[in-house]
């Protein structure tokens, strides 16, 4: 059980993550959605204890009740791979180019689990089969540059599974892949989560992928979790103005919006762009781009409210007149 309570990651130029609260139980499949700079990778870094040293952390992060907020690097080394593992966006550059992929996947088993060469090799082969790499005994002798993008990502997944973690964090796992490969990888992650009762944190800016992969979702903007709840509900009836904007900006081939005369309407966009960290508003981070903005938004930080922990002054105002 991974629990985060009002975690804040502060840099000298501003907060990259603000008061983030989450609970991840075994078997949970949580999606984290947001643009680049929304803090979703920083949230993942918190869960792995890999926040840059220049940051100060506040709030509380616990793993099965043990406080890990300010845990030392060597304590985190016992968590990584064994309890929480992570895969990254670029499967090519995320693999050591000088090593055979079999050796790469075997390394954490040998280091953390103390397996011998032959045992590790058998396990790697089984893992390769589990993640859908054909002809594993031949593939494990290959170098990363000899594999396709999808297979490299499968290797990375096998590496993450090497020590049977309870939590797998996938940071934009499909962004660098072709569409059909991306679908297969997404389904593989779901399948692994279910068959192993392993929690999955699926980070993406791709709403369709998150909808397919997860049961819960947290929407992030400018370091804040602006809304969270069951995936279907959040995407079906978005509460926060940012989530609404995000969904409206999504191209949907089945429901392409059309004008009355039948001509295609331009896809609506959220006006403006994500400001840099040092230029973020002190109150609600969405200030300046929001359609229902109020006078207090810029200066007062909205309190998470309602079943979806929505952080929005306008909404608060609506609900409690």
């Amino acid at each position, binding site marked *: 059980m991974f629990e985060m309570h009002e975690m804040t990651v502060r840099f000298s130029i501003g907060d990259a993550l603000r008061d983030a609260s989450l609970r991840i139980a075994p078997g949970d499949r949580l999606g984290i959605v947001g643009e680049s700079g929304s803090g979703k990778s920083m949230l993942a870094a918190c869960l792995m204890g890999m926040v840059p040293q220049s940051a100060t952390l506040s709030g509380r992060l616990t793993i099965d009740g043990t406080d890990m907020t300010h845990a030392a690097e060597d304590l985190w*080394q016992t968590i990584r791979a064994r309890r929480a593992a992570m895969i990254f966006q670029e499967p090519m550059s*995320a693999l*050591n*180019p000088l090593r055979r992929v079999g050796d790469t996947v075997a390394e954490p088993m040998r280091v953390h689990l103390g397996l011998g060469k032959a045992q590790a090799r058998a396990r790697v082969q089984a893992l390769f089969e589990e993640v859908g790499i054909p002809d594993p005994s031949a593939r494990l002798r290959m170098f990363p540059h000899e594999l396709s993008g999808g297979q490299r990502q499968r290797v990375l997944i096998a*590496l993450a599974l090497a020590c049977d973690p309870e939590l797998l964090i996938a940071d934009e796992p499909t962004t660098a892949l072709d569409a059909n490969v991306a679908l297969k990888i997404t389904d593989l992650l779901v399948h692994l989560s279910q068959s192993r009762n392993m929690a999955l944190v699926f980070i993406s800016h791709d709403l369709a992928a998150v909808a397919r992969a997860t049961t819960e979702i947290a929407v992030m903007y400018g370091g804040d979790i602006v809304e969270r709840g069951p995936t279907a509900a959040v995407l079906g009836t978005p509460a926060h103005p940012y989530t609404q904007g995000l969904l409206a900006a999504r191209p949907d081939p089945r429901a392409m919006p059309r004008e009355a005369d039948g001509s295609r309407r331009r896809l609506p966009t959220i006006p403006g762009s994500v400001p840099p960290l040092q230029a973020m508003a002190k109150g609600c981070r969405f200030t300046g781009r929001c359609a229902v903005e109020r006078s207090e938004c810029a200066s007062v930080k909205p309190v998470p409210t309602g079943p979806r922990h929505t952080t929005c002054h306008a909404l608060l105002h609506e609900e409690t007149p």
Partner: protein
Amino acid sequence: MSYFLLRRTIGFLATLVAVSVVVFAVMNVLPGDPALTILGLDATDDALAALRDDLGLNDPLLARYFGWVAGALVGDFGTSHSFRVPVAELIAERLPMTLSLAVAGMILTLIIALTVGIYAASHHGKPGDWITMFLSQLGIAIPAFWLSILLVLLFAVNLRWLPPGGFAGWSDPVAAMRSLVLPTVALALVQSAVLARVTRSSALEVMRQDFTRTARASGFSQRRILWRHVLPNALVPIVTIVGMQFAALVTGTIVIENVFYLPGLGRLIFQSIANRDLPTVQALVMLFAVIVVTANFVVDLLYVLIDPRLKART
């Protein structure tokens, strides 16, 4: 053998031929009479003529060149005028000194440079980084022969731990090793200053890459990540410099042997210059140039061993 290796091998052989032409040209074609150089201005005409004949100076240039190369290929470099023995014998006698100095220097250089470079990279931006990089900047500016003198002043003259120079032969291995400690350290310290900087910047480059993050996410210790993941990937630029440095080390032995009065090829070259022993100088210069070129060739081959991606591309 792949196309890459074939091309490199041909290039290597071509360079060797070119080097031999340059050495021969400088020593034989440039204005001046070798016989006169050897015997001096007060030599009699008869003696000069006899020596010219002896050196084959009356033969056409091309014939002399091919004669020299053909001889060198079977280990015949002619006869030394000052020592009155075949040059090959002189070389064989003194090569072990120079080679052991160069190899020991290289090993020590690698140990110091990789440790310091990786240490500095892992302490990037902290005092440990600044101090080691300042020291290496200083090390680059220190001439090896002055460092040698300082080492002798400290360890031989003042502390009397080690001999200031000279070499009594290999029959007493302990004494021989003691004689080689200071020369090896002097050679290695200066070279490792350069290599440590290269190691540091190359390692920093690799540490920014994604797979370093993957290794960290796999729960590996900082030490394991640095030595097992970062260092191998940082090796390609390091090996390039090591190739050049081995060359620099081998020529560095010429200086160091003269500082410490060690009977190696470097001392031999200077004795030969003083004795105007042209065939010996020519053979030795060629030998050193061959070592330099060969070191760079070996580096080319090492690339393929280090980086499997190169094998695919070539």
